[in-house]
């Protein structure tokens, strides 16, 4: 691999998140380095998705700080996170059901389009030019993900595995510097998982995108990630390179129960 892991670009410090009386996350700190693949694992309900939601501002933690590229803030706002280069996919596919694959991926480039609605209505120079420029970029993403044959298909007609791929495409179209993937391989068969792994590794390797990923398939996690953080009941119980985490007694306990 040509990539080299750089400095810390995202630092989460003592994050606590509550919904009413329910503690979703308690005092969690970890960091993400540039160009690395960082996995978040843990049993169901451990707070993994909440963690991603905190990173890109869907949830606002009550305590703690988020330092992204040297800028410290108490909370993110979703559209700010997007304009600063954080893109994500969702655990339950969150595509725009009424639109085609092409249009869905085009939405990924919305923040980069400058023309206003009047220019759009009249289809004046800039609106038209932008549309074509961005189409070109989107076609690169479509080529990369090998979904040329379905570009004009409404996403609601696609099978699950392809929908997941289109959602990744929408995130990639934004040319993010950091990509948050919430269970990108859930519900896939082995072949689809292999494809998805290949895409993730390629994105990381060729584009240098930093990846934070939640995944349940331990084989995949241990294979592709550089460092792993383990959550259980909203607390961090392990953090380190895959081998370290694998042998961490607390992690084993959380996954296999106390008896082992």
């Amino acid at each position, binding site marked *: 691999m040509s990539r080299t892991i750089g400095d810390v670009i995202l630092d989460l410090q003592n994050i606590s998140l509550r919904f009413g009386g329910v503690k979703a996350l308690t005092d969690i700190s970890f960091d993400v380095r540039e160009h690395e693949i960082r996995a978040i694992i843990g049993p169901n309900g451990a707070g993994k998705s909440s963690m991603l939601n905190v990173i890109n501002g869907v949830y606002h933690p009550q305590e703690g700080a988020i330092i992204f590229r040297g800028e410290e803030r108490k909370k993110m706002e979703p559209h700010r*996170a*997007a304009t600063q280069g954080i893109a994500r996919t969702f655990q339950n596919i969150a595509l*725009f059901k009424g639109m085609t694959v092409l249009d869905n991926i085009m*939405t990924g480039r919305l923040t980069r389009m400058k023309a206003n609605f009047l220019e759009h*209505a009249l289809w004046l120079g800039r609106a038209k030019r932008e549309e*074509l420029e961005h189409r070109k970029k989107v076609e690169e993403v479509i080529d990369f993900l090998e979904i040329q044959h379905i570009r004009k298909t409404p996403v609601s007609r696609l099978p699950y595995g392809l929908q997941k791929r289109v959602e990744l495409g929408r995130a990639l179209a934004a040319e993010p510097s950091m990509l948050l993937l919430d269970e990108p391989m859930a519900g896939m068969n082995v072949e689809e998982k292999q494809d998805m792994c290949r895409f993730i590794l390629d994105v990381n390797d060729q584009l240098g995108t930093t990846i934070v990923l939640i995944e349940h398939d331990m084989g995949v996690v241990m294979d592709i990630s550089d460092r792993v953080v383990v959550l259980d009941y909203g607390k961090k119980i392990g953090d380190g390179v895959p081998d370290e985490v694998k042998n961490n007694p607390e992690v084993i306990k959380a996954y296999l129960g106390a008896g082992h």
Partner: protein
Amino acid sequence: MLYREAGQFKSSYAADQQLFPILQDRVGVLLLLAVAFGVVPLVAGEYWFSAILIPFLIFSLAALGLNILTGYAGQLSLGSAAFMAVGAYAAYNFQLRVDGIPILLSFIGAGLTAAGVGIVFGLPSLWIKGFYLAVATLAAQFFIVWCLTKFPWFSNYSSSGVISAQKVVILGHTFASPREKYLLVLGIVTVLALMAKNLVRSSTGRAWMAVRDMDVAAEVIGIRLLPTKLLAFAVSSFYCGVAGALYAFCYLGSVEPDGFSLDMSFRILFMIIIGGMGSILGSFLGAAFILLLPILLDIVLPWLAGLFGLPFSNATVSHIQILVFGTLIMFFLIVEPHGLARLWQIGKEKLRLWPFPH
């Protein structure tokens, strides 16, 4: 056989992204416009213009406005008629109070005024959704009609708020006959419909549809919800406002606030439900269905009764008309909940293969 795009290869993104990418569609739209602008004015009679074509075009425009808001941006509204009223009264007041203002500028001003009001009543959409938002827009419906009745300034102190639209004069030419008014309305509706088509294929339209389909994901890819929703309210109200101005100036001639009732808002809503949510064509099909079917039944039912020698009174005919109308609406909704536009699309897909089954 006829509707087949085989052999129409696109070699540039520009060709692939044009307004009507398929040759047959381009030809069809041009033919339709040629007939509407060239043939219809020559052959249609006065009754056709003033009772059928002009109201059809005006309600299509209003339905198009509501479709932008509800069909594309996913915000349910029950205030379309009220925004039309704003447009009608605004155009009247621009003509009345601004010396020498061109009528087209008044129409644009009417649209902009309605857009402003639409933005105010669109503000709750950030916090409430679906049926609850519909109830909030219901407030717009009642408040605006009340306002126009209560403050006589709006109707220049006429009795019971009735306004009589001024003459429609453009560049010294008075549009007096139904034929001329039809051409004016047709021109405005064509331009606005093409602009709407451009809007919904651009990133503005994509942002609206993204908010409609999944607002959390839309936010995460960088769409700011409030400006996007408010823009939809503004553009939608603009269309309704222009439709209202045309309703007063080119259709009825004199209108009162109570004419823009909740009943009318519902009719416009039915138009887009039956025509097809999220479809420009659907707005026109829906308006045609809701407006023209009663007229058609009016003609066909007495004829049928006469054919079988049944002694139908006029009252019975109008009752049967309501019955048939309601049944047809239910039939269409059950057979194709996505509206007439979807039926048209399915028809086109079938035509690609015809005469072969698959």
